[in-house]
C-alpha cells in the first residue's frame, strides 16, 4: 500500500525549473529519505506534497488526496515539521501544545490525552510552564516533532529536522522517528546527514530537480559501487589528492577528514599504482592503504559527479 504516490510532479518559477517531473512512491509505514544538496529541489517538492505550493504540472496523491485538487484535505492528513524551529518561542510548552491542538481541532478530553502523550515523548512532564525559548535544542526538536503529530496523522513530513542539533540528540531523535514508523506512520524525511540516511528504509536522491537514484541503502551501494574504494593515509594530503585525481586509472577521489578515498576498478592494481605515483614519482610518504566498505557518502559523490558529467 502506498501512502504517497508522486506522478510527474513539476514546479517552475518563471524559466527556472525547481522540480522536473519527478515520480516515486512511498510505502505505508516506511521511513523515506529524500536527499539532495541545497537548492536541489527538496524543499520545493516537500512543500508541494504538503499542499502549500501549487505544482505547475503533474500531481501527487498524499494519503489518498490529490495535492493539485484537494490541498485542504491533504493538510488534515499530514503532520509537518520544518528545518526552522517553528513553535512559538514566546509561549510556554503547554501553550504551544494547546495552540497546535486547537489548530487541528482537538479539545477537551482528546486534547488532554494528546497533551499527556506529547509531554511524555518530549520528556517534558512537569515542565509544562517553561517558556519554549528556554529549552535546549534537542528537546525543542522532540517537542516540535511530537506536536507535529499531535493530531495522529498517518503521514509526517520532516524537512531537515535535525539541523543544528548535537549528535546524541540526533540519535535520540531518530529513535523517536523509528517509534513513529513502527506504529504505522509514514515518515518522509529530508536530511543533509548521510549517516542519518542509513536509517531510512528507502532513499531517493534528487539533484537539480531530477531524481538520480533511488533504493535502499544496501541496494544503492551494490548497484552504483562496483568499484573498490581504497582509503589512503599519507602526507601532503592536498597535493596527493591533486595528483591522484589526474590519473586515468582513478575513477573518483574525495577527501574524508585527513584521508583520501580513491575509487579504482581493481584493488591490487590500485594499491600498486598509488604507491608508484605518490611514493616513487612524487616522494610523498604513504602511511597506509586500506580497502573500505563504501558509505552512502561515497555513493552520492559518485552519483553527483556522474550526473554533473
Amino acid at each position: 500500500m502506498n501512502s504517497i504516490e508522486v506522478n510527474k510532479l513539476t514546479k517552475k518559477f518563471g524559466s527556472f525549473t525547481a522540480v522536473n517531473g519527478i515520480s516515486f512512491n512511498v510505502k505505508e509505514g516506511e521511513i523515506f529519505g529524500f536527499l539532495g544538496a541545497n537548492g536541489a529541489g527538496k524543499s520545493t517538492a516537500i512543500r508541494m506534497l504538503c499542499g502549500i505550493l501549487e505544482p505547475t504540472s503533474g500531481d501527487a496523491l498524499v494519503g489518498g488526496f490529490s495535492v493539485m485538487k484537494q490541498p485542504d484535505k491533504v493538510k488534515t492528513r499530514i503532520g509537518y515539521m520544518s528545518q526552522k524551529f517553528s513553535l512559538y518561542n514566546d509561549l510556554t510548552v503547554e501553550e504551544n501544545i494547546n495552540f497546535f491542538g486547537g489548530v487541528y481541532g482537538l479539545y477537551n478530553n482528546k486534547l488532554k490525552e494528546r497533551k499527556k502523550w506529547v509531554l511524555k515523548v518530549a520528556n517534558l512532564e512537569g515542565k509544562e510552564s517553561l517558556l519554549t525559548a528556554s529549552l535546549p535544542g534537542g528537546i525543542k526538536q522532540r517537542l516540535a516533532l511530537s506536536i507535529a503529530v499531535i493530531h495522529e496523522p498517518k503521514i509526517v513530513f520532516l524537512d531537515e529536522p535535525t539541523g543544528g542539533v548535537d549528535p546524541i540528540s540526533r540519535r535520540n531523535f531518530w529513535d523517536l522517528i523509528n517509534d513513529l514508523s513502527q506504529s504505522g506512520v509514514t515518515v518522509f524525511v529530508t536530511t543533509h546527514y548521510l549517516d542519518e540516511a542509513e536509517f531510512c528504509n528507502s532513499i531517493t536522491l534528487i539533484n537539480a530537480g531530477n531524481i538520480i537514484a533511488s533504493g535502499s541503502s544496501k541496494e544503492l551501494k551494490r548497484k552504483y559501487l562496483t568499484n573498490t574504494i581504497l582509503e589512503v593515509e599519507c602526507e601532503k594530503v592536498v597535493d596527493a589528492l591533486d595528483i591522484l585525481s589526474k590519473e586515468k586509472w582513478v575513477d573518483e577521489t574525495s577527501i574524508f577528514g585527513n584521508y583520501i578515498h580513491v575509487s579504482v576498478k581493481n584493488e591490487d592494481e590500485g594499491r600498486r599504482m598509488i604507491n608508484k605515483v605518490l611514493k616513487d614519482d612524487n616522494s610523498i610518504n604513504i602511511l597506509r592503504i586500506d580497502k573500505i566498505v563504501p558509505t552512502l557518502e561515497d555513493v552520492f559523490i559518485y552519483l553527483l559527479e556522474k550526473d554533473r558529467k
Partner: protein
Amino acid sequence: MLTRIKAIAKKEVRQLKRDKRMLYVLFVFPILLLVIFGYAINFDVHHIKLVVYDQDKSFDSRSFINTLTSSDYFDLVGYINNENKIKNILDTKKAQCVIVFPKDMSKDLYSRKNVDVQILIDGVDANTASIIVSYMNIATASYSQKFQSKVFAAMGRKSYIPIDVRPAFWFNPDLNSTFFLIPGLIAMILIITAVVSISLSIVREKERGTIEQINVSPLSSFELLIGKTIPYIIISLIIAAFILIAGYILFGITIKGNIILLFFSTLLFIFASLNLGIFVSSIANTQQVAFQIATLVSMLPSVLLSGFVFPIESMPPVVQFFTNITPAKFFLIILRGILLKGVGISAFWQQLVYLLVFSVLLLGIASIINKKSKVA
C-alpha cells in the same frame, strides 16, 4: 472552525502579554498622544501681550485699555512714550500688539470728532494676527457704542442700535479648539495602534517562520485573520473607552449623542483600521518594514488629511480627493457628530457605508496578495 479561531485568539493574547514593547505601544502611547495633543496643540488665542503708547493719558484712554485687559484675551505688559520704540518691541516679540492713542483723544471725542486709534500687530503668525484684529474690532465697537449712548444720554436722547449682531456658537459654545481636536485625536490614536499592532503580529509570524507551520495546518487564512483580529478589536475598544474617559477628566468632553451608536461606529472604524493593518502585513516581510509602513499609512493621513487639524474644505480639490484614502476622515465626521452635536445615524450613514466598503476592499486586496506570496 470555532476551536481553531479560539486557539489563534488565545495564543495572540498570551503572546501579547509577554511582549512589553507592544503593550507599551498599545497602552502608554495613546495617553502620551492625548496629553501632548490635548494640551500642546491649542488654536485658541488668549493672553495677547499688549503694549500701550498713550499720548493722551486721559480717563478715556485708560478706560479703553481697561475694557481690553479686563478679559483674559489681553495682558498689558507695559507702556512706552516714544514712537521709535514700537518697532523694537514688535521685533523682539515683547508684545504681539501695540495700541497707539493720539494726542487730544479725549478732547476730540467730546467735541464729536472722529478719533483714529492705531493698532500695530505682529503679522508673522497670520492666524493669530487675524484673531487679534477681530478681538480689537469687537472691543472697539462695544466701547464706541457705550461712549455713544453716554453722549446721547447727556444730550437727553435715547440711543438705539439698528442691527444688533449676537452670534451664538452651537455645539462648542466657548469655541474651544480642544473640543474640536479630541475626536480627531481619538481617530488618530485608534488607527495607529490598530494598524501597527496587527501588522506586526502577522509579520512576526512570517519573520520567525511560524507562519509555515500554520500554512501546512488545516487553518484557512480567513480563520487565521479572524482569530488574530478579535483580540485587537477588543483591545482597541478598551483604548477608545479609555481615551473618552481621559477626555472627560482632562478636557471635559462629554458624549452628547447615542452611546450605542458611538460603540458600533467605533467598532466599524476599528475593523477598517485593522484591515488596513492586514493589508500592510501582506506587503511587508520584516517587522521593521511593517512598522515603518504602518506608521506612514496610519499617522500621516490621519493627521494631515482627515480634517483633524486642517479643514478639508480649504484644501485644493486634488488634495481633497486624496483625503478619501484615510478612514479617519469619515470616522472623524461621525465622532464630531456624536460627541459634539449629538446627531443620529441619519447624519452620517454615508460615512458608515464608506468604512464598510473600505474594510472589505482592503481585506480583499490583502488576501489576494497573501495568496500570491504563498505560491512564490
